[in-house]
């Protein structure tokens, strides 16, 4: 027999057996699991069986329903899962169960979260902090502290040197180009450089550029000192200190 256990700060407050009827949780006293706390909405969430699986559904509560610390609108539950509502936990305890229903066994493992939802702000912040910690380590990349620069070695261009300031740097005769090519047959968009999170990538335009003498396939990451050739122009990509 499955049951739901209402816990508050480690203490079991209430046990509700799970049958086929939905179990409602909320501040209103007519809920199956009433929780007398202002952080809990009147009808906050419900837990019910759908296609042989237990599902928790948030009923548009003000403060949200969390499954294992992730905010959910609707999610499947498994044994031991803790649903956080306000400061109370509702824990699913299936250990007294006999074999699960045959129906449930036949089902392919379905994603537990089948409705798109957005991570709660706090959770996202935690994750981004984790990411930032890793990012800080990658700050050791010396490129980050230096200015990416294109220096013209050969060919007719508007300047001899260009510092890459934008996310997009176009090499061509187009008025939108940063590295303006001059001369009669200069291509409109010869090539382009796109800034990604991890560095600068050279991509083709109307021409296929070469890096260190080799034609690129798709967008290719530029390394310090690379020589770029496109049409009649040759440039070096360097991180200036």
């Amino acid at each position, binding site marked *: 027999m499955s049951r739901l256990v209402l816990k508050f700060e480690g203490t079991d407050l209430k046990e509700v057996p799970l049958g086929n009827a939905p179990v409602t949780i909320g501040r209103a006293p007519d809920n199956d699991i009433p929780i007398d706390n202002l952080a809990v909405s009147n009808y906050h969430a419900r837990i019910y069986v759908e296609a042989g699986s237990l599902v928790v559904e948030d009923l548009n509560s003000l403060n949200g329903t969390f499954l294992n610390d992730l905010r959910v609108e609707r999610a499947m539950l498994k044994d031991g899962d803790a649903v956080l509502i306000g400061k109370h936990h509702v824990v699913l305890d299936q250990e007294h169960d006999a074999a699960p229903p045959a129906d449930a066994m036949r089902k392919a493992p379905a994603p537990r979260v089948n409705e*798109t939802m957005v991570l709660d702000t706090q959770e996202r912040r935690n994750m981004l902090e984790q990411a930032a910690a890793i990012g800080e380590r990658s700050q050791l990349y010396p490129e980050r502290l230096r200015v990416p620069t294109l220096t013209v070695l050969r060919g007719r261009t508007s300047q001899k040197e260009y510092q890459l300031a934008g996310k997009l740097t176009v090499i061509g005769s187009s008025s939108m180009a940063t590295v303006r090519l001059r001369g009669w047959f200069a291509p409109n968009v010869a090539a382009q450089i796109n800034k990604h999170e991890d560095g600068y990538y050279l991509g083709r335009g109307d021409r296929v550029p070469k890096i260190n003498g080799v034609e690129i396939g798709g967008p290719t990451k530029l390394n310090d000192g690379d020589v770029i050739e496109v049409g009649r122009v040759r440039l070096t990509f360097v991180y200036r200190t």
Partner: protein
Amino acid sequence: MNPPLRIDSGARTDVGCVRTNNEDSYQVEPQINLYILSDGMGGESHGEVASALAVQTVVTHCREAVESPATPMFGDLKPEVSERTNRLASAIHLANTKVYETAVANSEQKGMGATVVAAWLDGQRLSLAHVGDSRAYLLRAGMLEQLTADHSLVAEKVRIGILTPQEAETSEWQSVLTRAVGPQPDVEVDADEHMLVLGDTLLLCSDGLNRMVTDPEIASTLLTATSAQAAADRLVELANENGGQDNITVIVLHLSTKSQNVFGWLKGRRKTSG
């Protein structure tokens, strides 16, 4: 100086094989070369409300900005992208405010949200902005490149190196977004730009496509289609043939100078939502 461009566009949305309502919205605005789609979320029919409002807000803001460049900007200006790209990001910031405020004013819509991916062309220069896990892909010289980085829990974990791409594909948390338009009072918008060249094909899609159809299938469909609309239709069919687990929306743009895609071109402005 610039050669006259032809942009052949096609779009299609479909409820898929499993869901009963379509929460995606899209709009194609050839007059200003703006293409946008949005995948809504929220219980009942609130996802549809969120995605339609997001699309409408972005289109309106961009149209206003074309007519009157003094239209106010929303969100932080980023010096590393063009004014037009900043404008597109501004439109998404405004959409976020509108969806958020609508949800606050209507308690049953609380928490509703939407993804957005929008492409705005200025000649060959593409401004691209997105929030959430709807994607933009570029097919250039036969190679398919994903231009957007998903704002989903699994994708962000892959990027910071705490989850492998293989683990991400089978993760039960694939539907968890780290950013969306609407649920919070403010949102961070990713904005980027690219120079398109003749022969390029740009694809915008909701996750109902890329979860059902592999990148190689997408690439070969785009390569073999006779028009942008035929490509859009075929991609939706493929997603449904592979299970159609979610709503599917695709917008396909193909750049050429010739009028070989005259039929797709003549169809002109196609718009719908939900």
